[in-house]
Every structure is written in C-alpha cells, then in structure tokens.
C-alpha cells in the first residue's frame, strides 16, 4: 500500500519574517502563519483535527500550539528531529489521514530567535564526549564534514562559495528574502571565518520566521477552490545524533531517505523540476545533490559551479534564496515546503520556474543527522 497521491497540501503561508521586533512570541508567529495558510486553503480553523509541530521553545509543542490556536486535535504528532521535522510531519500526516486518524492536518512552526537575541535558539543537549573540545554547535560539525569532503574529493572553498552566491541570486528575485545585496565568490571567501573552512557567508541566516501548511486527503482537496499539490512520496532516515558518530562525513542518510521517496513516488532525480535542499551551510547543498542522485559522490562541488544552480541554470535549487539568503528561523524545513508548493502552483513571481510538475523537498536536522525527502507534484504529475 502506497501513500502516493493520497494527500495534498492545500494551503501554505509564511509568518512575518526577518526581524519581527521585540515582544512577539513564537506562538504569535505560528498564529499568523496559520491564519494565512487557512485563508489560502479556504478551510476553517474548525476543520483542523490534526496538529503537527516541533520547537526549540516549547517542550510540548503541539500542546502549546493547540492551546494558543484553540484547536482540540484528535491526532497530534510532535516528532522532533531538527529542521527536517516538518518534512517528516508531511509524511506522518499523510499516513494519519490515509488511516482515517485525522482529516485536516496543520503543520506549523515559529521562531523569534533574531528579535530574542540574535543567536540560534536550540534545546540541544551537549554530548559529554564532545563538550570538552568546545565545538561551536552546529557550525563546527558541518565544518568537519566540509573538511573531509575537501580532503577526499578536492572540493574547494570557491565551490562552496558558489552555493552561497547561487542562493543570493535567487534571493534577489524574492521580495521576502532577508539578504538581497550583491554577493560574489570573493565576498564569501573574504568574509569572517567562523569555523574553518566555513565563513559567515557559508552559514545560514539567524532570523525570525515561521510557517504553516495545511494537508488533507486528495479527495478533500478536490472540493476546495485551490490548486492541490500532491504528496507523491516521502522517506526518512537517520543514522546518528552527534557528528563524532556519523559513519562517513561525506555521505548523509539522504542516500536512504531519497531512494525511499523516489520509490514511493515512482520518479527519479531526472524527473525533478525544482529542488529545495536544506541549506543550513553551503556544504549541505553539495552533499544533498550527491546523495539524492543529481550527481555522483564527489562531483557536487563541480555541479554547483558556474551558476548551474542559479536562476537560469541547469537545476533550480532553493529558489526562495534558501536558508543562506532568504530566511532561517532556527529550523527551516517548513519553509522548504512553502516554496515548493508555490513553485508547483506557479505563484513564485520573478523566481518562478517554468511549468514545474515535480518538486523535491529535502529536510536536514541536527548535525547532518536526520534526513527526510519528499516529492511533491502537480495534478499532471499524478
């Protein structure tokens, strides 16, 4: 039994993004995004009977969200594995809806980390076998992975910088992107080093923000006045929590989550029209392009070079501007879904990819720890 095409995303929205100012709470942002996503879908708050959320602020996130919004769900899922959680929620919502456990699922997230102090808010515990060495969480862990990729495959800082530049070129086309000024490879290379080989421009933004997505059965979606975006397939995988336990720092568990998602969807990387790859750091995009089959292992650096993932390039990647230039509110996975849905509906304005039918959404969580891949499709892709 497959979940292919069983559910559709019928509403998406962002909360206010960037720097919302002091006083707003993460739940306020979830409230904003939920109102907008419900309006987008044409559904009413009273239709929502499934809640999905994860948070670094709320220990029992779906309880807090349900209370704030005044929703009493009959199905609740607070799966928490970092930034990928929300892509996971999409799969879990599909399973719950298909099993009849709920009909309308709300996936939501909010963070006020920038207004609240300008640093990543994380509930992450320290690993007692890593803490004595003071790695800066999480950038040093990704830096270690980058150092290994450079050693094994000759990947260069210039190639990593190309990822940041491509993200910026997309961000320039997105009025909601946080950073839209010109950015060159040289700018990235000469920016402040944080944890070598990653400079500050190799790192995602620290912004406020949030989002919401409404998911319902394909049948239910057809009764609404929206363009449904179907879940074609999804897969999850995780192999480690701490970077010192990652078996091979050049290979993420996306080599399992990807094929699981492709198999359910009945498509391969060659069918993907637009890819949203969780770019917490520049090395992520390189690793996920390799691990998800867009190029061979070790060729990611070359793949991203020369504007090939920029607007007008061979593969449209992170068309919002990504976590690097658009928005990164601590956990970014839900905003990947928002952008993929908008692309498939043809609502992405200046950055719209021409007639996409299949979007790949890839969430990453922890320190390259959890990997969740989903394939979304238009009616034509069904």
């Amino acid at each position: 039994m497959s979940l292919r095409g069983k559910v559709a995303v019928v509403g998406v929205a962002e909360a206010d993004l960037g720097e919302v100012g002091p006083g707003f709470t993460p739940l306020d942002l979830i409230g904003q995004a939920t109102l907008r996503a419900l309006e987008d879908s044409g559904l009413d708050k009273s239709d929502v009977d499934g809640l999905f959320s994860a948070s670094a602020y709320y220990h029992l996130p779906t309880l807090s969200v349900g209370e704030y919004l005044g929703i009493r769900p009959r199905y609740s899922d607070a799966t928490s594995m970092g930034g990928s959680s929300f892509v996971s929620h999409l799969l879990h919502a599909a399973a719950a809806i298909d099993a009849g456990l709920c009909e309308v699922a709300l996936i939501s997230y909010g963070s006020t980390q920038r207004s609240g102090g300008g640093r990543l808010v994380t509930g992450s515990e320290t690993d007692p076998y890593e803490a004595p060495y003071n790695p800066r969480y999480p950038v040093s862990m990704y830096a270690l992975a980058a150092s290994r990729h450079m050693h094994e495959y000759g990947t260069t800082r210039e190639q990593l910088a190309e990822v940041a530049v491509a993200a910026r070129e997309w961000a320039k086309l997105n009025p909601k992107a946080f950073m839209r000024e010109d950015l060159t490879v040289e700018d990235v290379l000469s920016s402040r080093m944080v944890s070598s080989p990653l400079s500050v421009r190799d790192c995602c933004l620290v912004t406020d923000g949030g989002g919401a997505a409404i998911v319902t059965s394909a049948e239910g979606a057809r009764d609404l006045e929206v363009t449904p975006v179907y879940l074609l397939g999804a897969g999850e995988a995780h192999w480690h929590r701490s970077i010192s336990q990652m078996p091979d720092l050049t290979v993420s568990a996306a080599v399992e989550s990807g094929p699981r998602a492709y198999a359910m969807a009945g498509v391969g990387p060659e069918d993907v029209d637009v890819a949203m790859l969780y770019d917490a750091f520049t090395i992520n995009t390189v690793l996920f392009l390799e691990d998800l089959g867009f190029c061979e292992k070790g060729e990611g650096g070359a793949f991203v070079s020369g504007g090939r993932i920029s607007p007008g390039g061979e593969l449209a990647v992170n068309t919002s501007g990504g976590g690097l230039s658009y928005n990164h509110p601590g956990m970014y996975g839900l905003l990947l879904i928002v952008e993929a849905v908008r692309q498939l509906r043809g609502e992405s304005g200046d950055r719209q990819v021409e007639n996409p039918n299949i979007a790949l959404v890839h969430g990453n969580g922890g320190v390259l720890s959890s990997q969740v891949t989903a394939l979304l499709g238009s009616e034509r892709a069904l």
Partner: protein
Amino acid sequence: MNSGDSEPPAEVYRRYLESGGLGFQRCAGCGAAVFYPRVLCPVCGESGLTWESSSGLGVVYATTAVYRWEGDPYNVVLVDLEEGFRMMSRVEGVSAERVEVGASVMLRVDREGDDPSPVFVLRGEGP
C-alpha cells in the same frame, strides 16, 4: 538497584582516563570497537562488551579551526584510532589552522581541567 554485574560505562571510561589511558569497548560478538561507552554493541546488539586500552595512535579524520572574537582560533578534530573507533578531540602543540586531515597523532591525557580529557599531539616522522 542495578543489574549487579556492571558499573556504569561512563565511570569505567573515566577510570581509564584517570590512570592516563584511553578506554574503549570491544564487542565479544562481532569484534567491533565501540566508542562512546554503552551497554550493548550498536553494530550487532550483543551485550558482551569488554574493555580495552587504546594504543592512543590515530589519524585525523576531519578538522576545523574555531574562531573567536578575541584570541587565536582553536582546533576541533575527529580522530580515527587504530583500533577502529572515532572520537572528537583537539590536537595540541600546533596552531589550529595547521592541523591537517590525514595527520598522524598520538594520545596525551590532559589533566589540567576538572576532568581528565583525551587530547592528541602530532606524531613525528621518526623516533
């Protein structure tokens, strides 16, 4: 009340360090080297883990220099020990940016902090 046949793995590990050594576990079932210490083998699931002392010889698997607003950067590495396990540590006695992937290193237990902690120094070309 515990199962009676063992002390906490983290305490055994600490005893090794206090005596100047680096302890790790070996699985009696599949032979895997296990680190960090635990009560079962994460490879095969066997509970029969025995303690061994590492030679302390290893190779840098990955490295980063962590920059601060003030002061020199410090390094953080992952080291592959010759017995087949990996751990996070730092390489001392060399500037942070000079530590390279593939460098041969050997253990030195740092006793300066509250808790002894395993760090590494570069191994020379000759004796």
